[in-house]
């Protein structure tokens, strides 16, 4: 049976496991209809021109998590930022793992989507924010239809979350192939501040497909700092859709570190609803083998005096494929917009491919918008300079590549996270350099 049919016919079974007397149920039923109509995206769609899901969709995925699979903390410790005190929301095969997690209801809510969707207490928030900015495309609708579990974070007005929050999804590979559909909702109130780190990790060689949707609301003058670490096994594919609505004077930044996985697709949409907003989108992609990373971003400027900054760096080796499709829309009301976009790439192999499509759609005249895109190689002179001073070829290349990505890395605001990413990069580039300069 095709995956699409399997999903559609499983919806009834899914309904048996959730409370159908809530408003969310109508949203789910509507969403499954949308998915049935639209299905999975194909390369014929402009937004998916360079990414084909065919190889990913052919597996016979199990859709429902069976039971809670316990894993020992020592086995997975390395996937956590353990040297930093954080809240943790951990899922194993889509099920919440209470013994690995550390949640709170003290001033802020860091808990589960499943309880937020069912408890009366959260109803006003769910009614106001759930599924409000998620576009009606096939994949997002599919996630909405099966939305049950994920992270729920609510930071009320004038509150600073006392420590960063880690959201980690593990796939154990007990099933021969597994599909996960986490759904996160993050609401950050006026003048509030939160830092979030998200990670998806497969623990076996069995294929995993994650179709994740996160909705983030940043109220007036809120501050949201979001980090995505994608360093998964070759058998794991990830479709990560993040939709962010920002209100006046808020600052939201999303950093995406894509270091591995089979097919990784990042949909990142910013909707600006107010003046004086700043949106920051940063990304570093370092991949090799047959990995495929696709960044699809949208920044929609609707009101005056806002800014957006995009900076995506990519290094591609062997047969890796990189895609960047960045879109900036400036409505005619959005005068005095400053929108910048830059996409720089290095190709290390003749088998690697880059497809870049930086796109501007501008309807206002008094704006400063620019985009730049480059594809190039490491500078031979710089390499020679270092080699002549006794730095080995491999290390010299690694240093240059690190420097290339450094713009983005320097904007990481959590020091422990930064040093972790530095280590990941060193490992990725096969050198033993700390980079913690």
């Amino acid at each position: 049976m095709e995956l699409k049919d399997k999903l559609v016919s499983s919806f009834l079974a899914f309904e048996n496991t959730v409370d159908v007397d809530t408003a969310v149920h109508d949203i789910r039923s509507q969403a499954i209809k949308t998915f049935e109509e639209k299905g999975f995206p194909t390369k014929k769609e402009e937004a998916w021109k360079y990414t084909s899901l065919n190889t990913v969709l052919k597996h016979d995925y199990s859709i429902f998590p069976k039971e809670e699979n316990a894993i020992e903390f020592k086995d997975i410790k390395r996937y956590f930022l353990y040297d930093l005190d954080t809240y943790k929301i951990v899922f194993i095969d889509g099920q919440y793992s209470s013994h690995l997690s550390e949640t709170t209801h003290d001033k802020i809510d860091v808990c589960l989507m499943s309880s937020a969707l069912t408890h009366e207490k959260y109803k006003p928030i769910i009614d106001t924010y759930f599924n409000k900015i998620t576009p009606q495309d096939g994949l997002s609708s599919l996630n909405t239809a099966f939305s049950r579990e994920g992270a729920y974070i609510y930071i009320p007005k004038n509150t600073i979350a006392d420590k960063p929050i880690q959201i980690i999804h593990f796939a154990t590979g007990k099933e021969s192939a597994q599909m996960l559909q986490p759904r996160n909702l993050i609401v950050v109130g006026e003048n509030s501040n939160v830092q979030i780190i998200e990670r998806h990790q497969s623990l076996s060689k069995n294929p995993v497909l994650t179709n994740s949707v996160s909705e983030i609301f940043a109220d007036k003058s809120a501050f949201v700092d979001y980090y995505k670490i994608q360093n998964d096994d070759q058998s794991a594919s990830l479709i990560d859709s993040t939709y962010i609505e920002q209100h006046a004077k808020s600052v939201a930044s999303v950093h995406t570190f894509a270091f591995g996985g089979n097919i990784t697709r990042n949909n990142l949409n910013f909707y600006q609803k107010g003046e004086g907003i700043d949106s920051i989108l940063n990304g570093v992609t370092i991949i090799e083998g047959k990995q495929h990373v696709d960044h699809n971003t949208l920044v929609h400027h609707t009101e005056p005096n806002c800014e957006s900054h995009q900076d995506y760096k990519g290094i591609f080796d062997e047969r890796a494929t990189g895609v960047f499709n960045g879109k900036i829309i400036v409505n005619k009301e959005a005068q005095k917009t400053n929108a910048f976009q830059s996409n720089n790439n290095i190709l290390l192999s003749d088998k690697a491919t880059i497809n870049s499509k930086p796109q501007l759609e501008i309807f206002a005249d008094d704006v400063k918008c620019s985009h730049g895109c480059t594809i190039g190689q490491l500078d031979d002179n710089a390499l020679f300079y270092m080699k002549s001073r006794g730095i080995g070829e491999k290390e010299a290349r690694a240093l240059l590549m690190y420097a290339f990505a450094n713009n983005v890395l320097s904007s990481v605001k959590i020091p422990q996270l930064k040093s972790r990413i530095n280590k990941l990069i060193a490992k990725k580039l096969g050198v033993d350099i700390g980079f913690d300069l």
Partner: protein
Amino acid sequence: MAYTEDDLKKELETKEYEYGFYTDIESDTFPVGLNENIVRAISKKKEEPEWMTEWRLEAYRIWEQMEEPEWANVAYTKPDFQNISYYSAPNKKPKYNSIDEVDPELLETFEKLGISLEEQKKLAGVAVDIVMDSVSVATTFKSTLAEKGIIFCSISEAIKEHPELVKKYIGSVVPQKDNFYAALNSAVFSDGSFCYIPKGVRCPMELSTYFRINQAGTGQFERTLVIADQGSYVSYLEGCTAPSRDENQLHAAVVELIALDDAEIKYSTVQNWYPGNAEGKGGVYNFVTKRGLCETNSKISWTQVETGSAITWKYPSCVLKGDNSVGEFYSIAVTNNYQQADTGTKMIHLGKNTKSTIISKGISAGKSQNSYRGLVQINSRAANARNFSQCDSLLMGNECGAHTFPYIEAKNKTAQIEHEATTSKIGEDQIFYCNQRGIDTEKAIALIVNGFSKEVLNKLPMEFAVEAQKLLEISLEGSVG
């Protein structure tokens, strides 16, 4: 009474397309609609050989299977292809030996367009192959060119007299099945220009064609084929105007350039087809396929100034097949009122050490939409390929839009690609500076726009550059906010 600002405003509002006149020449027009018989009839009318008729029919059959493309960033009512007459030729069609024999009314038309043949002959040294409603009616300087072995004639003449060249190259760069409009053109093209420069010859003058759409309700389907043999050089100019008509007129041309080893082709276009009136009514639909093929060490350079047409859909491209070949694209696209332009280029790098440069300047005013759409593709064997692209947009007023859709695809690690795009408006301080020095706002804008487009204007041959500057001014008249 003094001339007030209101008067000026009124004058600008009512200012209609200057070249919007209609020449009353008896035309030989086919019934509307398109089917195999019409295609055969066109071919027969043009006394074409059997292989050409077959080639057209093949294209027609492909076209029938195709659908009109919808991906472009333009909105319009689709033309009804069964409601167009596919052939119209001025009725009196003997071949003229000298300009005196040409229908005086026709000459007057050209006079109004400001391209007096005599003048051009004497002053500019330009050989003009005038295409008026599809059939070539006058060719000048033919004998001068013939001495050098250069063939410059209408394509129908070439089909008859140089079938071996036409047969070899037609459809080799833009095949019949390339796209919807190219297929349509291949089936029904009425006329166009053909140019062949023999080995090692440097064409002594700029070759030039003027196109006009004249007869109401007739589509214009030009086919241009330029072949530069090894080591030759040619500069080719194409200029277009159309009289104003209310219903939208369709123009689907195909231009194929072939630059053999060490050859160079410079192709310049100034297009000011009727853009429709201030309410967006009427205007020409311009759906053009232009492509050049570069062999080893050759160079193709496209320069275009697009100020007209209600809809422009045009992507002059270079296929850089040979090693060390060079492709260039310089473009100014100006849109005003309700005009929509979706234009850009494709640079396909196949050979080693190939280079391409793209400079695109978009200017949008009024309620128009201006898009740049381009592709830079570096294939895996194209070692050391180099591309530089720059797309700048200038917005005037906040009811227009500027869009950029660049596609960059690299498959070779030695590729070096740079792409940058900016969007801005004319600064108030710049206007103020000019005003202060006694330059009125309208002139100041023209000045600034000319400066903005200078990089491209510089690439045009001299006579064209002057005309293009004037056109920029005319197109932006009345757009001062």
